[in-house]
């Protein structure tokens, strides 16, 4: 009864838990192409590529500068798209346009605040002066993006630029003399 009660674990189950160690097959059946074992000999080739001549620090600086310029010009690349979306979303106060305006302000400001972090990895002692130029360009680009947001809220009429926006603070002119009628 006890043998019946606890049946032996089937092999597939046991192997699922403890996969058997890979053993190269004794027979010469080739592995299918792409099978890891078949690529094993080419590892030396990869190693050969990795063992390319290391770039000089000048080259590294140029590369980093190039990369930094890409980052700096990043904000302006999205602008045409953002502009079209802003134009399409209209000037009415809706959740979509409000979110968009919020993002249009949040991103540039956060970007400007995080200028140093953005270029930290490209900065070296040698290219500091050039990176500064890039940083300035980056800030200018962020300001351009910000200007787009300002243009948007102006379009939405949220900027107090007109006389009517200050009307509530204007006082009524009071006459110094008063009259009452008895007619």
């Amino acid at each position: 009864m006890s043998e019946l009660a606890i049946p032996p674990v089937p092999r597939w189950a046991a192997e699922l838990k403890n996969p058997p160690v890979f053993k190269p097959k004794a027979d010469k059946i080739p592995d299918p192409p792409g099978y890891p074992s078949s690529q094993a000999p080419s590892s030396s080739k990869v190693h050969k590529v990795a063992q390319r001549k290391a770039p000089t620090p000048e080259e590294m600086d140029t590369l980093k500068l190039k990369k930094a310029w890409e980052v700096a010009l990043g904000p302006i690349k999205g602008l045409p798209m953002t502009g079209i979306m802003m134009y399409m979303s209209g000037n009415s106060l809706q959740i979509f346009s409000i979110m968009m305006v919020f993002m249009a302000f949040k991103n540039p400001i956060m970007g400007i605040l995080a200028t140093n972090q953005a270029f930290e990895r490209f900065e070296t002692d040698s290219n500091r002066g050039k990176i500064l130029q890039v940083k300035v360009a980056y800030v200018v680009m962020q300001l351009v993006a910000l200007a787009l947001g300002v243009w948007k809220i102006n379009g939405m009429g949220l900027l107090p630029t007109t006389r009517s926006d200050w009307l509530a603070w204007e006082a009524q002119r009071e006459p110094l003399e008063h009259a009452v009628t008895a007619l």
Partner: protein
Amino acid sequence: MLLPPHLSTFLLLALPSAVRAVFQDEVGHIDYHYELLGVPQRETTFFHRPRRDEKASLLYTLSDVGVLGAVHPSSGAVLWRHLLNGTLTDGGGFLRAGEGENWVAGALGKSVHAWDAVSGRNKFWVDFSGEVRDLEIMEMTENGGRKDVLALFDEEDGSSTVLRRLSGDDGSVVWEFKETTKDIPLQVSTNVEKVFVISLHGNAAAYNLKVTVLDTLSGKRLDELVIGTKGDVHSKEDVMFVGANSAAPIVAWTDNSLQKLRVNVLGLKTRQEFSLPAGAVSVEIHAPHLVQSLPHFLVHIKTASGNSADVYHVDLKTGGITKAYDLPVQRGTGAFSTSSDNANVYFTRITNEEIVLLSSTSNAAIGCWPLKEGELRSAAIYGVSEVVKKTGSGESFAVRSAVVTDTDDWVLVRKNGEIAWSRPEGMTGAVAAAFAEIPENEDLVKTLEQEAHSNILAAYIHRVNRHINDLKYLPAYLNSIPSRLTSSILGTEVSFKDGKLARDSFGFHKLVILATRRGMFYGLDVGNKGKVLWSNRAFDIAKGDKWNVTGIHIDESAGETTVLGSNKDHVVFKTETGKIVDAKAPEAQVSTRSAALVNTLSGQVLLAVGLDGEISSPPADWTPGQTVVTRGLGGELKGVTFVAADGAKLSPLVTWTFPVPQGQKTVSIATRPAHDSVASIGRVLGDRSVKYKYLNPNALVLAAVDDAALTLTVYLLDTVTGQILYSSKYEGVDAGKPIECAMSENWFMCSFFGQYGVRDDPDQIVKGYQIAVSDMYESDQPNERGPLDDSDSYSPLDPLDVPGAGGASTLPSVVSQTYVLGAPISALQVTQTRQGISARQLLAYLPDMHGIVGLPRMLLEPRRPVGRDVTPAEMEEGLIKYHPVIEIDPKSVLSHERDVLGVEKIITSPAVVESTSLLFAYGVDVFGTRVAPSFLFDILGKGFNKVTLIGTVLALSAGVFALGPMVRRKQIDTRWNAPM
């Protein structure tokens, strides 16, 4: 606009409800209406059966304000009514009904008319020259059942007397009797075979009575009798009574000292004398009007302390008059009325204690019913009665009397001494009304004053003590919370807190003080459906006279109201109770033209202005700090200021005069209301620029017409300097039609009847009611404030043209537009709200439609673009394309289906909530409602279902409480009983 079809349909359906002035569930909740007739006159009020074969009778009256109407005697509801002349009249007129006829005949002024007795539809209306003096129904005519109308006229120039017999069917003249004479026509009377015209003959020193006897068929003169009066009769009022259609009509008068009563049976030359009891103050005669009734009459003698009556019988054969019996003297004035049932004549005597029914044949009372204690608040003056003899065993009578009391109420007293209904007819003919806040608790004001005057420590102890004292009200307050909660949920209102009036947080509970021309004043609770809280008589105004109120001033802090009259009279009473504090009766001479509420060193006071517009030097602490604008005898406007003449004494000085140009006469003057809050000083245009409003609290609009040139000129004046700021002229204006102006904020409007050209066809001229609206701005250009720019203050006395500002002037830039109205309007008024944020509405009475309309100011916008579509910027501003005709939209009629008759004036007052303005209209009817020109944006409407809301909240919380533990248990179970 490409809306989905179902959405646009929905919008279309939603539109009417959005613009509806009154919601159905608000009717009777926010508005109230007293359907009034006016105080019924003694001679023109009677019970009459409108259908011959039915017993039910109606009560008909032609009141002292010229309203002819029928009232249901059992309920007091008005069946139908007509304001005969279109405006309120000063009494007079005649009303008669033929026995068994289904129509009543009336006469007022120069017209005679007949009305269907049940429906009130007009049967005929005929106008003649001259003025009607008397009206009678010819009960028996030659052509079968038709009853004709006899109308006695006095020609306009007093040169002749005309009696016309008009057909009862269509009002056509059957015959006319004309006599060219200087005699004063008095009355007409008829018995079965003759018509008698009674007139005063001779001169004013001593008139004799002239009786002209006419033939009923042809109107030919049969006889003429002159009855000497021995100098007793000096005017037509001295002849007390001319018996109507009784079998033996009589004419009666007294001597000057009220000692003798002289009676003449018409058609006879003799007159009989009867002595009156000593001390008689006035004598009245009551007699039946039916031909078949016994020729008995009752003489009602009033003395200073009581009243008595004598009953006389006329012998038909000999014309002799004998005294049948007399009635004992009773206290008070008492009221008698006559009713007849075929030959029987009954007299009803109504005193403060009982109703006594007498037959004309014996002095034994047929019935006597004591009045219930305190039922009749005030003494009955006169009345009419209906006596019905009940068929069945024994002699049983039912009597009901409609009496006018000395507080101008019309009361129906039933046989069992109960009051069936009481109509406050005295509220008609109101001459002035004002809104008053419900006075705050006076004790609190006093204690606060007391605290302010003591030292800090004492005041603190006093206050702590007061608060501890106030704790005794805490249980009552806690007790009241459930009832307040339920009333708030169910929408019922609690207006009285421990029987006292209290303000409410919305400001809907206010009082209206109403003063009438009869010398009565009323206090109405606006928040409680216009309930009459109190009424009181200020003065006894003689019949024909009017209490001419020039000003009402409500002193909030003292809780007192002062009403100033034109005859040096005034009355001061408590606003809350109407109790008179101080009163001075009117003098005979009219001495005050108007009154101005001026600010003085001792607060606001009412300053009386003389007839010629002069102000006598008031006491030093009553000297106003403002210029007072008055009107002179010639209609000119004057500005009076007070200047120091010698030392400290200030004396009035006329600083400017505005004489209306030659040929013109002033028809309407409007100023901005005393409470006219302006929320924004400019108007924001579509491009976000600002057009600044010209807000001059001293501006006044004066409309003057030229009868000859048919022009209306509207002047805008500055009342400090008297300078004309602007004027405009409208041509082809009918000066005979009412012209009215209204002003508010930076705009004014005048409504008139005039002609205008049609744009498509310049030759075509159309006449119609128009309204000219003008906006005043500080400058033509937006974003400009004129030469004064943003200075905080200015003096109107400075020159209008500012030197050095390039010819710029401080005159307003006016934009005007004229609209054609679908109906005439009158009693113009503008809504007032607390802060002026809500849009304004022009409120007006529609005399033809008997309703009060609220025209949105947006509709009457002068800047609406003409002849082109609106630009998007203008659309943003809320402008709509100009359309010349403004039809009166029934949905904008605030009085909806109510028939509001004869409104003379509308007053408005702001509530505490910004959205709402309180409206009160008076004239004949009294009507009040709340207006929300920008809809109710700050309070929940009555349609808001608080029960559902609270039910939902309760159900949800119950669900949460019930499901919470279950869910929690389930979550724990899932964690612990995880399947292995």
